[in-house]
């Protein structure tokens, strides 16, 4: 056992340090298994003291590390290439839940859906609801500034974080807030920093009151174009849905073949899942308005679900769609990009054309209301020729999204998967500013090295020893 492993074992106990490659393989990927990197060590602290102790040992050994929640990320952000992986899944206590102040303080390993379950008896919920909410952790949500279908109306993770205790990579423990009482919004800088600024010890988040009435509509269309245009018409009509999601035929087929079959019409070219919530009167008026609007926009049928069980079924299908695509092919390449909503139909046509040209099948399931695309390609990446076609198609798709005035990530983060697109999106000056912001939190560049911002963009990079350059 290395001296680092021995020192870590002193903090958490020998059983919570993995050092043999045979037991480290399961930590080589997040939910994008096409990206792999084997950690040299994995360590699992269970308490704030253990976590702080672990980070201090790593600092004393000048050792780089990567924090990981449940490994449900979709950009390779939690890969630790030959360095130490700090698993936070054992830190899963809800430390406080205040129904009057409507806040909860939790450890980073608390599962997103667990927090909502704990808040439910008080008529509250945690609003950011990534599709992986049944498994993903609040700590990971903070690292990625995670979104989810309901962020259209309720905002993303950052909008729901009040304060956080952070252990900085050098072992110092600080409390960050939104700067509401003066000073900088350092928490705003931390949320979405993809694990490059430090590790959450605990975080206080806002809980949201359950709406009085929730209604979910399922509208089905015979063309993707019509469905995409309908989303713009909904928003243009002045209705702010709680969520507005689009799924295409390939996605519908995968979901309907799974245990989460939701009753989406298999012969539709696309379905829109629209949810409205709020005070009962307003919601009923919105439902009437929306039903008429969707029909006028070309919907073949509109199904209205009031009953919680029926609504839950419609949502389960959407939320498990990504997993269900495993039925189509051995591997799945997932992408995440944002485009102006008004250009959705045009971009979906472009994406389809790119898919046809490269001989790959693109499945679309995404947050249409905020123009957050998820083009997914089921494929067999063990076939080098197919892997190359998929890669080429994805690059063209991302280039098209950037050209349309969009961005390369809506909610999955850059990680290592999208590092290569950063230069196309940002000027060297902007990237250098990001590097310098990072230096404030992690001057040693030991926290999640080589992620989020391409290292060549950092002016001082070449002064750092090669061993620290991480996976990039």
């Amino acid at each position, binding site marked *: 056992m290395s001296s680092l492993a021995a020192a870590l074992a002193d903090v958490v106990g020998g059983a919570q340090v993995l050092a043999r490659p045979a037991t480290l393989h399961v930590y080589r990927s997040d939910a994008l298994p096409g990206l792999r990197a084997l950690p040299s060590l994995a360590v699992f602290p269970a308490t704030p003291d253990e976590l702080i102790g672990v980070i201090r040992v790593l600092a004393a050994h000048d050792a780089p590390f990567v924090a990981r929640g449940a490994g449900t990320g979709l950009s390779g952000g939690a890969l630790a290439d030959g360095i130490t992986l700090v698993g936070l899944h054992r830190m899963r206590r809800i430390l406080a839940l205040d129904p009057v102040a409507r806040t909860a303080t939790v450890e980073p390993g608390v599962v997103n859906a667990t927090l909502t379950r704990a808040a439910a008896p008080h008529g509250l919920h945690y609003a950011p609801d990534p599709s992986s909410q049944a498994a993903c952790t609040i700590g990971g949500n903070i690292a990625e500034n995670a979104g989810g279908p309901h962020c259209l109306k309720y905002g993303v993770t950052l909008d729901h974080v009040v304060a956080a205790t952070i252990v900085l990579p050098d072992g110092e423990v600080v409390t960050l807030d939104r700067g509401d009482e003066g000073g900088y919004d350092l928490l705003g800088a931390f949320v979405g920093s993809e694990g490059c600024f430090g590790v959450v010890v605990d975080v206080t988040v806002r809980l949201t009151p359950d709406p009085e009435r929730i209604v979910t509509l399922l509208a089905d269309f015979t063309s993707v174009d019509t469905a995409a245009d309908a989303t713009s018409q909904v928003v243009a009509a002045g209705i702010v849905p709680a969520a507005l999601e689009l799924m295409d035929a390939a996605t519908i087929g995968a979901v309907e073949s799974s245990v989460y079959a939701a009753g989406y019409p298999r012969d539709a070219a696309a379905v829109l899942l629209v949810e409205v919530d709020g005070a009962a009167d307003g919601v009923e008026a919105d439902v009437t308005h929306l039903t008429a609007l969707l029909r006028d926009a070309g919907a073949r049928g509109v199904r209205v679900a009031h009953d919680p069980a029926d609504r839950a079924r419609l949502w389960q299908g959407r939320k498990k769609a990504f997993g269900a695509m495993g039925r189509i092919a051995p591997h799945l390449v997932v992408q995440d990009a944002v485009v102006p909503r008004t250009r959705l139909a045009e971009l979906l046509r472009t994406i389809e054309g790119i898919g046809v040209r490269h001989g790959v*099948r693109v499945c679309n399931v995404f947050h249409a209301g905020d123009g957050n695309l998820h083009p997914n390609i089921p494929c067999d990446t063990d076939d080098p020729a197919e892997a190359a076609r998929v890669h080429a198609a994805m690059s063209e798709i991302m280039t098209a999204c950037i050209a349309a005035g969009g961005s390369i990530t809506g909610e999955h983060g850059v990680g290592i998967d999208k590092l290569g697109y950063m230069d196309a999106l940002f000027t060297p000056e902007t990237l250098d500013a990001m590097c310098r912001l990072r230096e404030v939190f992690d001057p040693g560049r030991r926290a999640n090295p080589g992620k989020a911002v391409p290292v060549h963009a950092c002016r001082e990079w070449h002064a750092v020893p090669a061993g620290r350059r991480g996976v990039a």
Partner: protein
Amino acid sequence: MTTDAVSRPCALPGTPLAQERAGLDACVHCGFCLPACPTYLALDDENDSPRGRLLLMQTLLDGTVRPDDPDVGRHFDQCLGCRGCETACPSGVPYGRLLEATRATLTTHRPLPLVARLILGVFAREWALRPALAAARLVRASGVAGWLARALPARLGMPFAMLASTARPDAANWAATGDGQRGEATLLTGCVMEGLFHPVNRATERTLTVNGYRMRSTPGQVCCGALHAHAGDLETARALARTNITAFESCGAASVVVNSAGCGAMLTEYAHLLADDPAWAARAATFAATVRDVSALLAAAGPTPTAPIGAPRRVAYDAPCHLQHGQRIVDPPLAVLRAAGGIRSVPLAEADQCCGSAGIFNLTQPEVAERVLAPKLRRIAESGAEVVATGNPGCLMQIGGGLTLTGSPVVARHPVELLDADYARGTRRD
């Protein structure tokens, strides 16, 4: 786009795991199985999660990890095989089959532990099994089991507490009649069920009779082979399956009734187990289609309710994994309980979580089983139930033994026993 698997290098060609490789390819690593896995929640290591074990299978196949690696073997040993992950999996990964195939592949590189081999050997041989169960009944009847459960330290006492919990001093005994209009059914009497839970078997026959089934017996039936298949001894499981198929074919009843969730899940898997055997594949598929859990047959018949009886007992239902995940049977056991007039159902939190029994798991992995059982016992205490109803002998013994050891007044009973007892009380009142 191609969906055909490209020919990939395989470090374990021709093994059961290599044959099931397509099932492995369905996993996209989404991680939705993690919160559904009792051993991940208890052991906190992704190596003890479904996604982790699937990845270990992958590394075995691509040769990254050797099949005799002690750590890898341990993580497969520590899997309950509850298949809760299958119910959570959007991609339909056949985890249970992959686990059995992996264990079958690993047994050629590392033999099963002695305890497991001993138990499996006894269950595969009628001449050994009958005396063993008779001896167990003697230990139970003499009161030695109860005494040892109390006197020994918890982990050593658990097997005796489990045995003591199978006693049924209050077993009903009455003659049931029915119109037989729902056709013929025959009972898989089972090993542990007939050996230690024979009052449950009689209750099964009586409740089915009351509900219009004509019961026929099937001589020549043997252990279902579930314990062997789960441990990776697929050859013994196949031999037992062939014997059972032959026996039940001679009986000819329309339905083969099972009151043990684990055995029922196994019988429905015979089609897959013998799929590559040309002489048996079709027979196995025909047989598997006749298998019914007792709760499903009773629910199909109503079941006939009893009138409200006295002060109702508070009963909490705990779903056996191989009923809810293995056979996707969720509502029928609740219908059985609703028909019993002497019962008031109370909710049990986390009733869908495994209790840690898992066949012989609680004997081969007592420490893990204990950690999985602990939250179950807490939830039972919180529910305020007087009785926990569950339709599987392993769960009845694991929960019953745990309750006995912790000095709880709560008892574990099969749903059919509870309905039968209320039928019996109704009969007496007539």
